């Protein structure tokens, strides 16, 4: 499957899950900030990606779990360097540039752009 085909299917998934228009789903659109995704939508997106691409996504594989609860990863509302490093290992598909410059824990969700989903699916399909 080409990157364009993957993008196209992901676009359809996001239009369905988030009730947005096709043209709002650009590669650099942030799922939460630009497309209005909330935590329950992340679960819906995982379900729909599994179905669209016939892949299995383990709990916490695409979207992180328990980050904000771990005192080694988050201190005074900021993600610690240890937290950043751990997240990079668990989520090699995500884009940490913005978070590295402003590591507020409430901005963690903003690492997830449409492009991140495309890269994640590409890697999963290549590993199949």
């Amino acid at each position: 499957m080409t990157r364009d085909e993957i993008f196209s299917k992901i676009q359809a998934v996001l239009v369905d899950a988030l009730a947005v228009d096709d043209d709002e789903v650009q590669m650099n659109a942030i799922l939460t900030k630009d497309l209005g995704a909330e935590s329950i939508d992340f679960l819906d997106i995982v379900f729909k990606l599994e179905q669209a691409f016939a892949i299995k996504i383990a709990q916490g594989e695409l979207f992180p779990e328990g980050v904000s609860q771990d005192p080694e990863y988050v201190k005074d509302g900021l993600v610690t360097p240890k937290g950043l490093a751990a997240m990079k290992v668990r989520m090699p598909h995500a884009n940490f540039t913005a978070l590295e410059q402003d590591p507020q824990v409430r901005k963690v969700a903003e690492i997830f752009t449409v492009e991140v989903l495309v890269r994640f699916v590409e890697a999963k399909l290549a590993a199949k």
Partner: protein
Amino acid sequence: MRWMWIDRIVQLVPRERLVAIKNISLAEEHLHDHFAATDDLPAMPIMPACFIIEGMAQTAGILVGHAEGFREKVILAKVSKAELTEDAVPGFTLRYTATMEHFDAMGASTRGVVELLDPGGTTSARQIGAIDLMFSHIDQNMAGTQFPEHNFVFSESFRTLLRMSGVTDQGV
């Protein structure tokens, strides 16, 4: 008043499908405000759409809960789609059919069909809606929030409904 928006489970294929019915009755207090008479119009009792959605939520929620023996706290998290094409009025019966679309440790998604049945036999049964829902197993939530240990979702009223409908581990 108990918050039960289905009266009987007529079919339960574990992890697959649950069919439930609700009889709409003039004895339901809220119908007399929905809608009450105005200066120009007579009273028009109609089942509120939100309670039809709740009926489907209870139907599908039991399907999802039954899948894990009611150990998980299953709560409605998202109404992905709710389309209703006709009003449901007293003296008629709503039939909800919920089918499991996706199920895992975190939660489930269901697809549902709403039909209107006529016990008076003057009109044929027909589909009047489609409602797709997402449920969360809240003890498995991504944020790591802790909830009380006892299962406050599947209360005594639900247990009575299950028992009266003859639901077992194998379904009905």
